[in-house]
């Protein structure tokens, strides 16, 4: 993830007004005023975000004991070494990768499709947009319970549709009782909840595509698909990069749905890194190992996002050349 650097050279009224004065004192007063605005919020931010971020790393290097008075010895990279040899952790990363592969491309294709369909002066456009976005604003807790209910084994609605209505299956499936079928249910939730978000981002990007370009291409006899492929798509490349990177990050960080639908079970078959971290930390009170898992996940996600960003930049440059 990159962010724009703050414009340090910008003209700031407070400073500009002070600069006209010959003495240094108003300028200094402006500096103090600026700091005064920042200090309350920044102090809180430093306390509950920045300080814990540093602590997280330190805890991961300890055999952390939560009991009062107990000593938490430094153990270097032992927690990380242990992680590399933990088959459940490996499985949790595989599960997250499967979830990512199942949900990210699907959300992008459906989200982009919906955005294209809505990118026109269409009566009821806002209604559709609001409706498609509704799952995004609904809490993860509610939708996780809802999908657990839909994917129930006995009398579940998905089983009913597949067995009795469509006749695709002969007998009900124990969706949440086995690893891969549970991943199907969890991924279905991820897609259903997420498509509205990518639709919205793509819709905003498509609105920025100049009409004249589309019309010119249409006059040249380009069909709908070719106009989309050669006019719209290059214009929304930036949005596409953002969506892909954020969805991949989100995919690896899947948590609440798994916690509530399977809690990593049965027998750790459906653990993902964050549910496993949570179990280690708040189930077994192994805070050191939990923190190490968090850092491994964060590191992996950072590397993947960095690669995606680099690849997207290179693709843009090659395309422009």
């Amino acid at each position, binding site marked *: 993830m990159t962010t724009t650097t703050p414009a340090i050279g910008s003209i700031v009224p407070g400073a500009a007004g002070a600069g006209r004065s010959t003495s240094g004192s108003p300028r200094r007063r402006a500096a103090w005023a600026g700091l*005064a605005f920042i200090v309350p919020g920044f102090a809180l931010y430093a306390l509950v975000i920045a300080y814990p971020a540093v602590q997280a790393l330190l805890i991961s290097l300890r055999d952390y004991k939560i009991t009062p008075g107990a000593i938490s010895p430094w153990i270097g990279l032992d927690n990380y070494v242990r992680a590399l040899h933990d088959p459940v952790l490996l499985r949790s990363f595989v599960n997250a990768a499967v979830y990512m592969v199942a949900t990210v491309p699907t959300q992008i294709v459906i989200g982009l499709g919906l955005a294209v369909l809505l990118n026109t002066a269409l009566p009821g456009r806002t209604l559709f947009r609001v409706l498609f976005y509704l799952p995004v604003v609904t809490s993860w807790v509610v939708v996780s319970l809802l999908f657990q209910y839909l994917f129930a084994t006995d009398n579940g609605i998905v089983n009913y549709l597949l067995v009795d209505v469509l006749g695709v299956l002969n007998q009900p499936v124990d969706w949440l009782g086995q690893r891969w079928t549970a991943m199907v249910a969890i991924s279905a939730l991820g897609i259903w909840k997420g498509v509205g978000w990518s639709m919205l981002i793509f819709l905003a990007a498509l609105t920025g595509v100049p009409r004249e370009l589309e019309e010119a291409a249409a006059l040249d006899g380009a069909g709908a698909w070719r106009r989309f492929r050669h006019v719209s798509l290059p214009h929304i490349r930036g949005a596409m990069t953002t969506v892909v990177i954020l969805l991949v990050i989100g995919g690896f960080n899947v948590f609440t749905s798994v916690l509530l639908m399977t809690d990593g079970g049965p027998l750790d078959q459906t653990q993902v890194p964050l549910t496993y971290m949570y179990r280690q930390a708040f189930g077994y009170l192994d805070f050191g190992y939990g923190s190490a898992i968090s850092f491994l996940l964060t590191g992996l996600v950072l590397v993947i996002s960095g690669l995606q960003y680099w690849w997207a930049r290179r693709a843009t440059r090659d395309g422009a050349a």
Partner: protein
Amino acid sequence: MIAGSRRRRVTVAAVRYALLIGCALVLALPFAFMVSTSLKPHTLLLEYPPRLIPSDPTLDNYAQAWGANSFGRYFLNSSMVAVATTVGTVLLASMMAYGFARFRFPGRGVLFAAVVVGLTIPTMLLIIPQFLLAKNLGLLNSLPGLVPFYVGTQIAFSTFLLRAFFEQIPAELDEAMLIDGAGPWRRYWDLAVPLSKPALATCAIFTFLGSWDEFVWALTVINDVSQRTLPIGIALFRGQHGTSWGLVFAASVIAVVPVVIVYVVFQRQLVAGLTNGALKS
């Protein structure tokens, strides 16, 4: 030729609508089952085949959910936490953003960069050290104790959004007030804040929705039944009532309705804030 193109346009519009309505139905179906189940009498919850339209709908589940196990208390708790978080975040973030946007001082770039980095830190990475911090500060198991952590988590996004907004306020307006002898606080409160109402509203809505729905942190630090927020209440409803889904979904609908209202009323601001945030990064 023209008639042909018109027929083509009509066909395109029809296909467009058909696809949109199809997708809308698929997306709405889970919600439909949620509402339908919440309206079914207890004995009918395991009916097979499942019916989307309940044969004799009842509001019993809603009455029971609202009365049961201090659910009303959870609703009140969530409301208080969400309001306090929203006020705190918007106030502190707008002050910070104003300081970053309108003043020059040593370390400004570094401090702002530190805030922006916060946007990229996964919240779950911090949950262990934050838990220990809350424990040391005596903020475990306390409803007001949730607020500083929620504000801290949400403040970076709002600061980022508001700073860009404050920077666009023309410098002449500030200078006019300066000539009138207005100090920094008055320029912030009487000029920047009123001019930024739409951006402040966007931040307020995001913060409100974020804290209303927050689950993991509250689940981790809250033990007492009386201190629970709505998401924990709903998640635990499942176990307490032997998965009586009618109750669970009645409670869910009660929790979701405020969100839907806020979202539908303010969707324009939400969309603007969201797309700005995503497309600028």
